[in-house]
């Protein structure tokens, strides 16, 4: 596996909105809020930006030409603007596209923004449109029915318990209390409260699931020629990977338990970045976990522990803020989920950790950080960011 970059590339600026139910802002205003924060953080203006990549899942709001309608808000007048929709991964795909535009030598400074305003539309209508109309919609049970079924497979394989899943739900909402941008901040949440919350679909309780949020997140990626002028400490891209699996919900034999796209993407990214022992070599991870059970399954598939050992990661505190490998110090998706922005928030948080900008949820001395994007089990994006400029 060889690195593809002609030009070494770094995240040099990040910004995000306060996430939640943002009735005060239109979708375009929300996207611009994140863009302005990213630019202002390093004294950049739109004149410094060569091209823009915008990520959004249009079906949530039913507005399908956001690139045209929001061209001004997105800061793209007179510039190349690429809109992406790759489902749940779109925020990470947006970051990867920025990376490719810079690493290829095409552009020097590229702005990427992921945004979603779920309170504008219908989450159920959006979820219906992601199902195959011929094969899947007649027997759909929504995102929650799907995750619950996946959790049952994972439980059968790993023996993970409802208590262990509830601990994940608690950890996320407590970590979120240290993150001023997070949606669900619940300092007093307990394992009992999660287990007693309404059963949505067995075994998933309401507090095992991610919320629906409004929000946006933005990055600026820059070439090695200019990165150092913009940021004292850039977050250098050490590896990116995207892997797809087969198309239908029932095509992966063990769904959550064995996530072929996540395992494939991790293997590629670790190989490019020279990572043999992710638990020891990574300093922090921002993992796209749509449900409590999913986080433990994803940690297994990322090689943070042996397969089937996910429950131990939470029982032994390995993935807490003070643990060997803190996972989602931001509170993760369980605390904040504006879908089109969600995977970009993972990248923004991982970059913030490397750049020392994470504030109260900063993990000390982060040299290497990993972020993932998740697309309905069928595809995965991974990006690994580091403090040192990667070796050639």
């Amino acid at each position, binding site marked *: 596996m060889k690195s593809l970059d002609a030009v070494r590339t770094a995240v040099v600026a990040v910004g995000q909105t306060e996430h939640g139910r943002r009735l005060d802002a239109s979708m375009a205003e929300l996207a611009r809020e994140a863009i302005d924060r990213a630019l202002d953080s390093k004294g950049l203006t739109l004149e410094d930006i060569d091209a823009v990549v915008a990520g959004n899942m249009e079906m949530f709001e039913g507005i399908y030409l956001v690139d045209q309608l929001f061209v001004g808000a997105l800061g793209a007048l007179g510039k190349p603007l690429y809109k992406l929709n790759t489902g749940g991964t779109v925020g990470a795909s947006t970051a990867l596209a920025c990376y490719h535009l810079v690493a290829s030598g095409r552009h020097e400074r590229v702005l990427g923004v992921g945004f979603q305003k779920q309170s504008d539309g219908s989450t159920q209508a959006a979820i219906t449109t992601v199902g195959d109309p011929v094969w899947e919609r007649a027997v759909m049970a929504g995102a929650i029915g*799907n995750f619950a079924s996946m959790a049952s497979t994972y439980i059968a394989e790993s023996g993970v318990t409802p208590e262990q899943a509830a601990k994940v739900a608690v950890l996320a909402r407590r970590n979120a209390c240290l993150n001023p941008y997070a949606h669900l901040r619940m300092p007093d949440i307990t394992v009992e409260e999660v287990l007693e919350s309404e059963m949505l679909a*067995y075994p998933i309780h309401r507090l095992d699931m991610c919320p629906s949020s409004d929000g946006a997140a933005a990055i600026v990626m820059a070439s090695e020629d200019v990165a150092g002028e913009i940021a004292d400490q850039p977050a250098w891209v050490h590896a990116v990977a995207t892997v797809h699996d087969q198309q239908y919900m*029932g095509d992966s034999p063990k769904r959550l338990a064995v996530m072929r796209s996540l395992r494939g993407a991790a293997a590629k990214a670790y190989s490019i970045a020279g990572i043999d022992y992710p638990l020891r070599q990574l300093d922090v991870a921002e993992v796209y976990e749509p449900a409590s059970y999913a986080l433990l399954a994803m940690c297994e598939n990322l090689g943070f522990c042996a397969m089937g050992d996910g429950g131990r990661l939470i029982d032994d505190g390995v993935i807490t803020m003070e643990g060997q490998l803190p996972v989602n110090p931001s509170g993760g998706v369980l605390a904040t989920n504006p879908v089109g922005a969600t995977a970009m928030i993972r990248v923004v948080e991982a970059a913030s950790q490397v750049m020392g900008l994470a504030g109260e949820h900063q993990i000390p001395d982060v040299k290497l950080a990993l972020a993932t994007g998740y697309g309905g089990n069928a595809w995965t994006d991974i990006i690994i960011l580091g403090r040192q400029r990667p070796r050639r």
Partner: protein
Amino acid sequence: MSDPDPRVPADPREFNREQARRIEQQVTLHYRFAAGKYASRFFAALRDEGKILASRDRQGNVMMPPRPVCGLSGLPMDEWVEVGPGGVLAGCTIVYVPFIDPMTGVQRPVPYGFGLVRLDGADTSIYHLLDETDPQRIGVGKRVEAVFKPVQERTGSLADIRHFRLLD
């Protein structure tokens, strides 16, 4: 020009969420999806003969739903094989949260059973409804069997299988 609502200030920096308006719209869309060669044959066999057909490539991979190309081998799938009607649960749940059935626009009554069924003879699974609402009675690995609607009620849809019944 006079301000239509004096409570909304001209300066956007003084705007607050109590002044936010929402513009309500309802959009109704109608679609007619071409099912294609594979699904057309599948649904004809399901409706007229009560048979569940899957596609096979020359390495023996059997894909359900049937499809033109095997995702594992990359080979064309030019053979048809009958699978089921028995199978095994690869995943399962009881759904309590309301979900509007996309085929009817009507909310499906809750609770209902839902799961991934690996039909006998197939290498992949399909989601379908289960005739069970007790979470203690469902489980990964349990045997199930397709229950078909009567011929006169079938329309050529996966819903021609009413649900899967637990055998264990």
